[in-house]
């Protein structure tokens, strides 16, 4: 029994790492622009498919495809923000929900037309390798993924807090008008922010492809998990993604171990709903509250 609990905990924490990775971008985008991106899961999906195709056609290791998925998704995010989302950013929030929902429909359905509804997996040579510590099994691939996720969230935090670009992003998030007055090009900052958020999300999609099956309509589920993770950690507070990811990962892992795997999605919503009602600013209370 003790081993079972321990194993569920290990699985949950590893899962939490990947959750944090693909949710951090959502938190960044909301924190800076107040946009609830309903197409967030599609960014994960596109990143995952980039890895799949490079792996399938050229046999490259999934971890080597990370720069490609980052670059492609950065470009996609930048363009989406520059030409579509920036047009509605001054409008009431309902407009940005609808625009991002429209983007979700277009991307998911174009992917369906191109790639069919088949489930696909990326199985590398070292997929099955794992090691044991004190009777607990730790898969190597998942541990590497977890490590990359941690590093990525750390880098994002440094980028937002330690660089000029990051300071411009923060200034814009705090006060758009003042940022304009001191010479910041707000439209460009928005596009960069969205590009950055999309880029790290696509990169996480590459990691996801080594973890789970991928298919064109997988996006919505990831969007909803990102909602839950970000709300738990505090909307717009980037390190919160790690906290929220771990909490949700461990909860889901325990549910799958002791109740049934089918309940994990239902649990996600119940947790999300409860977190919003009880602590809208997140567990540590650092999130933005309207």
């Amino acid at each position, binding site marked *: 029994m003790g081993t079972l609990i321990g194993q569920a905990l290990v699985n949950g924490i590893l899962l939490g790492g990947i959750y944090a990775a693909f949710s951090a971008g959502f938190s960044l985008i909301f924190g800076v622009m107040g946009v609830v991106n309903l197409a967030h899961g599609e960014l994960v999906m596109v990143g995952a498919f980039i890895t799949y195709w490079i792996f399938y056609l050229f046999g490259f290791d999934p971890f080597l495809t990370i720069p490609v998925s980052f670059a492609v998704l950065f470009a996609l995010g930048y363009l989406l923000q520059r030409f579509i989302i920036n047009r509605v950013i001054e409008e009431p929030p309902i407009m940005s929900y609808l625009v991002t929902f429209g983007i979700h429909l277009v991307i998911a*359905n174009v992917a*369906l037309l191109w790639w069919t509804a088949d489930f696909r997996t990326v199985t590398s040579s070292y997929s099955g390798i794992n090691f044991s510590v004190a009777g607990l099994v730790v898969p190597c691939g998942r541990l590497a993924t977890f490590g990359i996720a941690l590093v990525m969230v750390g880098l994002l935090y440094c980028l937002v807090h330690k660089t000029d670009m990051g300071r411009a992003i923060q200034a814009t998030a705090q006060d758009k008008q003042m940022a304009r007055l001191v010479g910041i090009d707000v439209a460009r900052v928005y596009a960069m922010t969205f590009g950055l958020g999309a880029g790290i999300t696509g990169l996480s999609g590459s990691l996801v492809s080594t973890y789970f099956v991928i298919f064109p309509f997988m996006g*919505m589920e990831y969007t909803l998990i990102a909602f839950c993770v970000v709300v738990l950690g505090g*909307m717009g507070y980037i390190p919160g993604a790690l906290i929220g990811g771990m909490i949700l990962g461990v909860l889901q892992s325990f549910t799958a171990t002791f109740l049934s795997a089918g309940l994990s999605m239902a649990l996600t919503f*119940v947790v999300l709903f409860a977190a*919003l*009602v009880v602590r809208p600013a997140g567990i540590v209370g650092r999130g933005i509250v309207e």
Partner: protein
Amino acid sequence: MSKGIAMGRIDWRLHALSGAALLFLALLPRFWGSGYALRLLTLVFMWIALSGCWNLMSGYTGYIDFGPVAYFGIGCYTTAILMTRCGIPFCASIPMSALAAASIALPIGAATLRLRGAYFAIATFAFAEAMKQILLEMDRLLGIDSFGGSHGITLPLGPTNLFFYYSMFAAALATMGVTLWVEYSKFGYALRAIRQAEDTAEITGINTRAIKIRAYGTSAFLLGGIGGIYAYWITYITPQDVFSVHITVHMVIMTLLGGMGTLFGPVVGAFFLTIVEETLWARFIYAYMVLIGAIILAIVMFMPQGIMGTLKSLSRHARS
């Protein structure tokens, strides 16, 4: 409440026109109508009713409810279960569906309406998705066999198209009737006050929380009833179908197209979009969903004020 806001003078011409249109639609099946045309109009009525419900809550208060489909789905399932498992007739099931939806809406509304902006939208969205997941897992969880999980429920074959034509017509009229009452009542003023400046409204003595919950509950009550009619009409429901986020998005888009917080907004939007989708769907089976996405983007980017607003500003341009 003082008479500070001048009551918009009721335009009798508009009402006469609406009355004539209603009479025309009510008598239409008597002298014209293939089965297909009747079904299409029934669908239009359903969307008028559904969008009207969303408009009642979100259009007037400005609180963006992103999970109204939850109450539609609850209505579908209530009627389906009452009719198939308890042998209760359709006419008795509908009010029960409406009541079931409203009684779930009250506690949910009380909890979520403390949130604002994006948080309210996400919470309601989460609630609708949670309802879907709960219905999918309910049977396995409780070890019963009444909700059918992902296989859904098959209802007995209902009466003719004509019966559903009039049922949905009645649902659309009921929703519009409630909206009309809201337009000209103190309750409606309170809702609009919440949309414009909630904190100020609170200071002037409006119990904003109670008012919001009332609007949310009323909207859910109507949605539950419409869901009940839909379940019997379509005869086969699954959680994935009746709790689909697409239904929510349709309500939002139709209302936006016609104009939020107006009586005829949902009517115009529902007519327009249902007909457009019907023609597209028949022509482009595979690219249909991509087109819907593109239409949503186009509407939001180029016609943010909706059809009515765009027409008004176009005519202003033409005159100037």
